[in-house]
């Protein structure tokens, strides 16, 4: 388990991949750019634990905020915050 790659305020892009196993990235938040609002600490990756891996990756989890309009189009008007493991995320400029 390394240092968190991202910090509060960073813009991140979520994976577009639909993995062939259990994951905790909701479909509505795939391939979206959001802002990190909280760095939560490290947790064993749900995807690995669900597959019964004996040595699951332990990764930082981030609270990432998305504007509703980006997720579903107008009118939006609210925020959605989702809690995402680091491997669901890449940096976004």
């Amino acid at each position, binding site marked *: 388990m390394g240092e968190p790659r991202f910090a509060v305020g960073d813009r991140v892009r979520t994976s577009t991949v639909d993995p062939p196993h259990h994951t905790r990235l*909701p479909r509505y*938040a795939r391939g979206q750019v959001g802002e990190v609002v909280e760095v939560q600490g490290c947790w064993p990756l749900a995807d690995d634990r669900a597959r019964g891996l004996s040595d699951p990756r332990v990764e930082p989890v981030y609270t990432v905020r998305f504007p509703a309009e980006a997720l579903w189009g107008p009118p939006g008007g609210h925020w*959605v915050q989702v809690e995402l493991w680091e491997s669901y995320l890449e940096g976004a400029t």
Partner: protein
Amino acid sequence: MSGQHTNSEIAVRVRRLEERLIGAGLTSDDELDAIIGQVTSGSPANGARVVARAWVDPGYRERLLADGNAALAELGFSMSTGPQPQRFTVVENTPTRHNVLVCTLCSCYPIALLGPSPSWYKSEAYRARVVREPRAVLAEFGLELPADTEIVVHDTSAESRHMVLPMRPAGTEGLSEEELARLVTREGLIGTAAV
């Protein structure tokens, strides 16, 4: 309740499963009874006590917002009786921001503190709709928010569990902490009511 099957059919199935697992040495009637006792000791009243304390004690409110687990421990509560250790965080409603909680993927909820979640929270309708049209969903609960109140929907997709700290209602200055706690509803702690 049950989907396609009658309660009695399912009850028989559950009893058979129980007998098989007890027979396999994996649990016991005593253990099962103890687990049920433990989960039913969680209730919204616990959350209400936390809220009332935060309303009367600004220092506690700050500590609650900074570290929910530690603040729970101050009042003798814990999130460690659930299936696995969970980080507990509290999100505060303000005149300009209203928070509402959901778990779209399954129904994660701070069971260890508040007991089992209400049926409406577990419904597909709630899980599907509140992330997308929170104002309409809150209106169904009878909660109309001013247009300039920002709404933040929190999808509990990882290992943290959350609770809303509602705003203290106006005109409650004279109430005791116990009386304040009685104002707090389960819906208020999730964000589908003002308090």
